[in-house]
């Protein structure tokens, strides 16, 4: 890599760091883990930058962030795939400690954050990519590495699961 490659990487990839961090925050549910993983992913992206063919840089970076996040979760064995929703109450949900999140800490927002944190990671990722990152099915398919049809059915099931969790939460409170 020479200087112009570094400059190109900074211009093309680094503008998407907020998106990368957002995805990692939702997948890992911890701000410090998210920082470490995004740093690792950015450096990995830099190393692979020679193989980047000039497509959508955001999808390309987010795919790397996703892979690093899943590896991290596997390694840490902290994935709460099977945690029943009631147990998630005590969990420190991503965003709960953020200064701006605290300022706006509406009960609605906390309810939604808790519900999404309780979803299995394969549902959580498509929901975040669609609803927060505002990606198309095609882009989500590139990030997650599954066919568009799978994205569609997974997203559909994810929304239904989330709606059910929100109803449960409302009835519980």
């Amino acid at each position, binding site marked *: 890599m020479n200087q112009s490659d570094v400059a190109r990487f900074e211009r093309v990839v680094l503008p998407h760091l*907020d998106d990368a961090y*957002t995805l990692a925050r939702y997948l890992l549910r911890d701000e410090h883990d998210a920082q470490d993983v995004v*740093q690792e992913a950015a*450096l990995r992206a830099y190393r692979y930058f020679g193989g980047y063919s000039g497509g959508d840089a955001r999808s390309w970076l987010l795919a790397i962030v996703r892979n690093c996040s899943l590896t991290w979760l596997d390694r840490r064995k902290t994935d709460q795939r099977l945690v029943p929703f009631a147990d998630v109450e005590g969990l420190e949900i991503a965003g709960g400690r953020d200064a701006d999140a605290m300022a706006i800490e509406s009960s609605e927002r906390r309810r939604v954050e808790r519900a999404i944190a309780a979803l299995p990671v394969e549902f959580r990722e498509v929901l975040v990519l669609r609803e927060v990152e505002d990606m198309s099915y095609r882009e989500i398919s590139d990030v997650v590495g599954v066919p568009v049809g799978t994205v569609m059915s997974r997203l559909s099931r994810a929304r239904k699961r989330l709606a059910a969790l929100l109803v449960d939460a409302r009835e519980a409170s």
Partner: protein
Amino acid sequence: MPCDQFRDSLDARLDGELTPDEARDVDQHLATCPTCAADYARLSATHQLLSENLMRYRAPDVLKARIRGALVDTGDAGALRVMPQRRSTWWRSLAAGIVIAGASSALTVAAMRGRPDAAPDELLSSHLRSLQPGHLTDVVSTNQHNVKPWFNGRVDVSPAVPNIDSLGFPLVGGRTDYVRGRAVPVIVYARRQHLINVYVWPTSDDTPSAPHPSSRNGYHFVTWRAAGLEYHAVSDLNAAELDTFAESFARAR
């Protein structure tokens, strides 16, 4: 049962993923089927709830600094490695003569002023070496409470690791390095795209000294002494900002 063929298309309709023809077919069905219309309304409500309540996070500046710092680490390494080698072909013998001639007087001056012995050549080559891939940090952390204990058992001194993030100098991490034949702790900070290595070793001189700047080959050094330790900051950061860094570091202890 016509509902079955549309049920799976409701999300795609909501997300604007259908062709105009497909969308029209779904809309026509929704207009005539209360069950599917109710499903679609529920789906829309969920979508709206999510888009209104899920937040987009901003990557913290510290993270951006760490990444840019690490890019300098890997990106400039090739250029930096080549430079001193190319120069050495002609000026090394000349420089050696000057060093021998100047060494005794320089050491005397340093001793007289009670200033820490900076060993700048060795620090500079260590600094350049640290910019090679994988050499910058052994422990990557923005948290001073992680970095400081990490040195325990690895080196025989316990350096100050102040948190001066609020002054624009985020902590990147730490490592151990060999300088003057001994393992020394190195604390790494960032300033925009520049990295600052702070080398620490013990000194027999207990009197504290104010930060003292110097420079070599376009790199800047600041050395100071506190609590029986010598601190040597090395960076390609401009001299004024490196001075600010050293003052902030020394004051924060």
